[in-house]
């Protein structure tokens, strides 16, 4: 044995205090690149649970799951995406497509655990160390898979528009409509916000596929007024649209109009369901507005014989007499009504219910009655001088315009109010050559009218006078001297909207040829007698969830539309009519409630 064999083990000790060549454990941190695609992060408050991330995921790595403390509400399903990292391939398409931009990725990629089931979590809901990470993958500036810009709608120029009652909105071509329909991600968040719960993603897909007969069939499943609603609907659906979280919402209303405009009335029957065999039951409907005619359509479809009693000389209710033809041309409305009549619905025009044709007699002769008489009676200004002959009622002015009567409003017109009737009256007056002031007691942002209508009224030349509380109307040589008190907005109760308080001494007055009062409408209930057994509370018939007002005595009485609901728009009336029709059918056919 050599001496070296003894020495060698001790020789290595000479290196004992030198810096080692090996790497210490744990290894130094190795952060991901700034735009590395690591574990997901989600701003759960910004996320609306539309599921577009789930739809685009090529590996089905994402599930939408309910989350504690986050229920569904308008425009938010309450669901949030959960990622399964056994499936995720880190392609980041979910981040690229996310309509709200809430879903992103951190640059964290180290996560070690012996339990394979933990690699699945709901970002933004289950806390993780990388939450709020400023680094990681984000959608590049200007890079979007979704189109955030709405296809422009051709409209008449405002200077041109104000000269006539021609329809302002011109409608889309096929190419434009298909391009707009292409923006929809079919998440369905909109359906809950529509009072009629229309099958919106379905009919938008039909536009995309060029299958308009399917589109029309889907529209009529819940709404027999697509021409009218395609023009004047309050489109609450668009407020819920997930594309609207970071861009223009899809123009759902205009797409509905496109479908109805493209299919000829003569072709409707090919696309729409046939009516069922006659049930032998007869239903009376009072009021041929959207609510009444919607009930009529669905009842006729179910085989019932329907007679609609309408006080005016034409059907359509407020759609005809309250909405000017530049927003809803009569031929479009006539198309909707024409199809309903083609199913055998009998509309008795100029046939008010009241004296001589009482509700009680309808209950004798018919098997069920549906009341949808709306809110025809305008509220007065409720100030001294409100009976001045130049103080006109807005609804009456609009109805006179529909009837083609000479309005004689004069050169200077004041419109008092901030709702759609006020805007329509103002724009009707502008089209009759008047200069128009709109006086409203609160601010522009408090106005109940559609923002579009306010914008268009101003663009057409109406002057808006905000915070004007009416005080008095005096006579000024046959004209009306309108006196108002300027107000200031006071926040009286936290959480409630501010209240206008008159500023002492800030009194203004102007002389107008006409003052149009458009501060709201009430119902006309005189045709309902106490003996009918319909309970009236706060000027409304009291109804149950199906719209049933009374089942006692003779034929049951249902009610719906503006007369009953709080939303007071056409689509809510249509939904009421449909709901009541289903309930009446159940009652008449003995299927039980």
């Amino acid at each position, binding site marked *: 044995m050599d001496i070296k064999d003894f020495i060698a083990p001790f020789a290595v000790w000479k290196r004992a205090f030198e810096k080692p060549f090996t790497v210490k454990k744990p290894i130094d941190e190795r952060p991901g690149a700034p735009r590395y695609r690591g574990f997901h992060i989600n701003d759960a408050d910004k996320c609306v*649970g539309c599921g577009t991330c789930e739809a685009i995921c090529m590996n089905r790595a994402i599930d*939408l799951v*309910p989350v504690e403390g986050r229920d569904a509400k308008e425009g938010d399903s309450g669901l949030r995406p959960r990622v399964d990292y056994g499936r995720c391939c880190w392609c980041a398409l979910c981040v690229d497509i996310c309509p709200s931009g809430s879903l992103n990725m951190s640059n964290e990629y180290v996560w070690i655990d012996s339990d394979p089931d933990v690699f*699945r979590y709901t970002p933004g809901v289950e806390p993780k160390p990388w939450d709020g990470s400023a680094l990681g993958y984000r959608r590049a500036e200007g890079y979007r898979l979704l189109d955030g810009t709405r296809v422009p709608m051709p409209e008449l120029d405002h200077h041109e528009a104000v000269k006539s009652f021609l329809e302002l909105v011109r409608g889309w071509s096929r190419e434009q409509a298909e391009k707009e329909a292409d923006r929809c991600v079919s998440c*369905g968040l909109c359906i*809950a916000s529509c009072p009629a719960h229309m099958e919106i993603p379905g009919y938008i897909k039909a536009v995309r596929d060029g299958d308009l007969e399917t589109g029309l069939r889907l529209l009529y499943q819940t709404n027999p007024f697509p021409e009218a609603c395609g023009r004047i609907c309050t489109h609450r659906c668009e407020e819920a649209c997930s594309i609207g979280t970071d861009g223009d919402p899809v123009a759902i209303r205009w797409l509905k109009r496109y479908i109805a405009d493209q299919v000829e009335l003569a072709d409707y029957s090919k696309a729409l369901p046939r009516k069922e065999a006659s049930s032998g039951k007869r239903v009376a409907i009072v009021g041929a507005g959207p609510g009444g005619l919607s009930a009529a359509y669905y009842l006729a479809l179910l085989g019932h014989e329907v007679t609609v009693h309408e006080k005016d000389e034409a059907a359509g209710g407020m759609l005809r007499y309250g909405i000017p033809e530049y927003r809803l041309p009569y031929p479009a409305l006539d198309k909707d009504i024409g199809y309903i009549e083609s199913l055998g619905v009998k509309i008795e025009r100029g046939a008010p219910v009241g004296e001589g044709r009482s509700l009680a007699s309808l209950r004798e002769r018919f098997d069920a009655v549906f009341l949808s008489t709306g809110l025809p009676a305008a509220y007065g200004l409720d100030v001294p001088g409100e009976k001045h002959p130049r103080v006109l009622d807005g609804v009456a002015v609009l109805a006179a315009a529909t009837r083609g009567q000479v309005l004689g409003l004069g050169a200077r017109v004041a419109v008092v109010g901030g709702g759609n009737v006020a805007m329509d009256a103002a724009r009707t007056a502008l089209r009759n050559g008047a200069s128009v002031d709109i006086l409203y007691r609160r601010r522009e942002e408090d106005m109940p009218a559609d923002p579009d209508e306010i914008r268009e009224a101003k663009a057409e030349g109406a002057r808006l006078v905000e915070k004007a509380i009416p005080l008095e109307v005096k006579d000024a040589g046959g004209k009306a001297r309108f006196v108002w008190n300027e107000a200031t907005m006071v926040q009286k109760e936290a959480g409630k909207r501010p209240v206008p308080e008159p500023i002492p001494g800030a009194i203004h007055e102007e002389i107008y040829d006409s003052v149009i009062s458009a501060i709201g409408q009430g119902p006309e209930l005189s045709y309902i007698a106490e003996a009918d057994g319909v309970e009236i509370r706060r000027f409304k018939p009291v109804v149950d969830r199906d719209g049933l007002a009374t089942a006692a005595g003779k034929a049951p009485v249902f009610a719906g539309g503006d007369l009953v609901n709080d939303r007071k728009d056409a689509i809510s009336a249509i939904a009421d009519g449909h709901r009541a029709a289903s309930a009446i059918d159940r009652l008449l056919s003995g299927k039980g409630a």
Partner: protein
Amino acid sequence: MNELAKELAARYGARDWHDRRGDLSSTVVDPIRLHDTLAWLKDSAGYAHLSFATAVDNIERGVFTLTYTVRNHEQGHSLMVHADVDRANPVVDSIHLLWGQGWTYQREMKEWFGIDFPGSPRVDEEFVLEGWEGPPMMRRDFDSLAYSDATYEGRPGRVTHDPATRMQERLYPEAGK
């Protein structure tokens, strides 16, 4: 660089010259001239360095577009040479004798796109996908979901919810759609 464009056009039928940046241009040749074009660029035009080689699946046109980036370090200029090869029969001349590292890029393209380079060393060996038996996964008609479903087991307990159905259940359950 226009001299080079003209020279390449005359010699190899190169076309569609684009100056992408001051130091980067691109041109297109037929795949049959690809090897000769690159050889001439390397030996006679100073483009001695192969920076990069890859492919893009242009499935709409039925071709794979190969891209070779070569660099002239003296002039500080890079040139991308593109060539479309038939997607149905993707066979391309190997460049491993021009640049030693070329076979690595070619092995990658074979595995990811199924583009063959006959004679290229180890071209049929696995590159990064160990034990891969599916079709080339960078081809755009590769259905990753179908592949995952067929290859891997689903994780038990996964359940998803449709937003519209969920909202109906929570917000308007009375509408029995």
